């Protein structure tokens, strides 16, 4: 092959790769910008509207009469909780979907959020705990439920389809436990119930933000650091091993990280419906499917939660918890993602399940 032809082909490759990397970077930057805008909006908008300038001053620690309480004590923790939880749900969802090679297998379908929810409700209603203690109960519970699902499924290696089915069964069982506990609560509070059944940001206060951030930040760092081995795993276990990836170790770390993130976020906000499911596919549609899906999905999750919360609070006469908004929008999104004609790729993904 002559030198010039070889150089030309290398140039083609390089340009193509650069273009795709640029697209992905642009998407990430745009998502961060949108997230920042939504965050700021959440701080400013409400019963009383504050200017972005005032809101920023409060964030930076200044005391602004009137705004300090509303923005600092109410809206800021709410926005932070929403962003962190959305980030965690999106990241965990994309990880599960990639690991199980199936878009339909997200932690809120396969029972992981149900486990954390049930434990959190148990902790609050039966044990009377609050704050950090709830996290301490809910996170190991989520991991335990994941372990149970794994053990129930394991037979000559975990088969994805069976895992999904067992997860659905376990999820249904735990959901009914949660419902029962909620019905038996001494003071049946609709808001509280809604939080644990569909997810809500209304109970977000400062004492919850600390533990949430303390868990989400390191776990997210771990998962994002494993992006490269994850891209190898996407090619199948055999190919990944052939490329020199330590498959078992990486997979275990990814699963533990994703389960931990899911449990943390659920303990903070309840199981916000569909965020974990939608973030990955939406992010993939934006970036065109190249490179690792994790960071764009995480950012998409945060955007979804903050946007849905704004809609739930202000778009209608009644205040709807964020989970109701995402849940109600989930069905048309599901339709759009699965039923578009000619979506042979997604169809092939769904077809991979039995």
């Amino acid at each position, binding site marked *: 092959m002559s030198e010039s032809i070889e150089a030309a082909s290398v140039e083609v490759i390089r340009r193509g790769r650069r273009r795709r990397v640029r697209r992905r970077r642009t998407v990430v930057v745009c998502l961060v910008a949108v997230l920042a805008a939504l965050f700021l909006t959440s701080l400013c908008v409400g019963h009383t509207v504050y200017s972005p300038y005032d809101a920023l001053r409060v964030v930076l620690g200044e005391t602004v009469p009137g705004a300090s309480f509303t923005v600092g004590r109410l809206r800021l923790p709410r926005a932070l909780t929403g962003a962190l939880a959305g980030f965690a749900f999106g990241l965990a969802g994309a990880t599960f979907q990639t690991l199980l090679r199936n878009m339909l297998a997200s932690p809120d*379908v396969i029972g992981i959020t149900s486990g954390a929810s049930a434990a959190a409700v148990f902790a609050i209603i039966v044990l009377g705990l609050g704050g950090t203690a709830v996290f301490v109960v809910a996170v190991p519970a989520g991991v335990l439920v994941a372990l149970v699902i794994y053990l129930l499924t394991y037979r000559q290696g975990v*088969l994805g389809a069976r895992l999904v*089915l067992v997860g659905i069964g*376990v999820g249904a*069982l735990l959901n009914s436990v949660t*419902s029962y506990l909620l019905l038996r609560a001494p003071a049946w509070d609709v808001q509280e119930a*809604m939080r644990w059944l569909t997810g809500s940001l209304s109970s977000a206060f400062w004492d919850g933000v600390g533990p949430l951030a303390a868990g989400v930040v390191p776990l997210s760092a771990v998962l994002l650091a494993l992006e490269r081995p994850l891209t190898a795993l996407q090619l199948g276990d055999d190919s990944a091993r052939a490329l020199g990836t330590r498959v078992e170790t990486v997979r275990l770390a990814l699963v533990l990280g994703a389960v931990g993130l899911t449990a943390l976020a659920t303990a903070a906000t309840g199981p916000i419906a569909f965020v974990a499911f939608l973030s990955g596919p939406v992010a993939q549609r934006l970036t065109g499917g190249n490179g690792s899906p994790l960071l764009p999905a995480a950012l998409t999750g945060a955007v979804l939660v903050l946007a849905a919360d704004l809609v739930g609070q202000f778009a209608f006469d009644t205040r709807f918890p964020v989970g109701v*908004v995402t849940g109600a929008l989930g069905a048309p999104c599901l339709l759009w993602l699965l039923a578009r004609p000619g979506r042979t790729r997604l169809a092939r993904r769904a077809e991979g*399940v039995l």
Partner: protein
Amino acid sequence: MRTRSSLWLSACVLLVAVAAVLSVMFGARTVSPGDALAALVHGDDGSLARAAVRQRVPRTGLALLVGAALGTAGAVMQSLTRNPLADPGILGVNAGAALAVVCGIAYLGISAPEQYVWLAVGGAGAAAVLVYVIGSRGRGGATPVKLALVGTMVTAALSSLVSAVLLPRLDVVDTFRFWQIGGVGGASADGILQVLPLLGVGFVLGLASARGLNALALGDDLATGLGQHVARTRLLAALGAVLLCGAATAAAGPIGFVGLVVPHTVRLLTGPDNRWVLPLSALTGAALVTLADVTGRLVARPEDMEVGIVTAVIGAPVFIAVARRQKVREL
């Protein structure tokens, strides 16, 4: 097999009778069988025992009917979709019915039960179609796992919509609780009469499709070769299942897992012949829901635990066991 199946039939009838009696006997206070019979036969004489019995009879009746409806519907759905995991709760059918009813109450001001039964049926049908259409996309068609997944998601989405409709109307808090988990506690003789016609038609359609479903189990092509009108059988059977689910949900809220657990158990006893599976599923379903209701009353005295929770606690492990036994291909 025939004699064994008839034996099981008699056993199931007996079981239903026992369940009914137990249901009338137990509750916040226990009534002896003698008193129960006396109350049924001689009517109210003012005693507390008789009052308790009179209150429990409609409840028992509803539990029996709803259980039979869900059992039959589940068996029909499993046959129709060739999916051992089909259950009106899992496939989102109950959620569709619940949403339709809630919307009817909230937006159309419907309060007459006989009207919202029709809504429930419509909602059940719409949800079933939705789940089936989405689940059929892609190669392989409507495989069991895809249907289960799509059903779970549609249930989640529709439940969110139910919450969305009810939240602004917190004065109907009790209705909301009712729709979260199925319960037969609010039963009344009138209420039962409202749903009876639809249930009746559903039962007739469902049970009559037994032979057709047997043929369909061999595959569409073979069934047509055997002279079976495939599309018509499917449509009528589906209609029967939807009527049953819709009416049951309208009367008692979304009760899950009955439609899953009962047909499997029955099939273990009688084999896959639908001419036995369907009627026995009806009877076993009736017994199961009634007994679950009794259990709920006993376990959580003096209140009661909604029947939907008990069926979930029983049904989910069965679902998991079936899922584990399934031969599934690698994802």
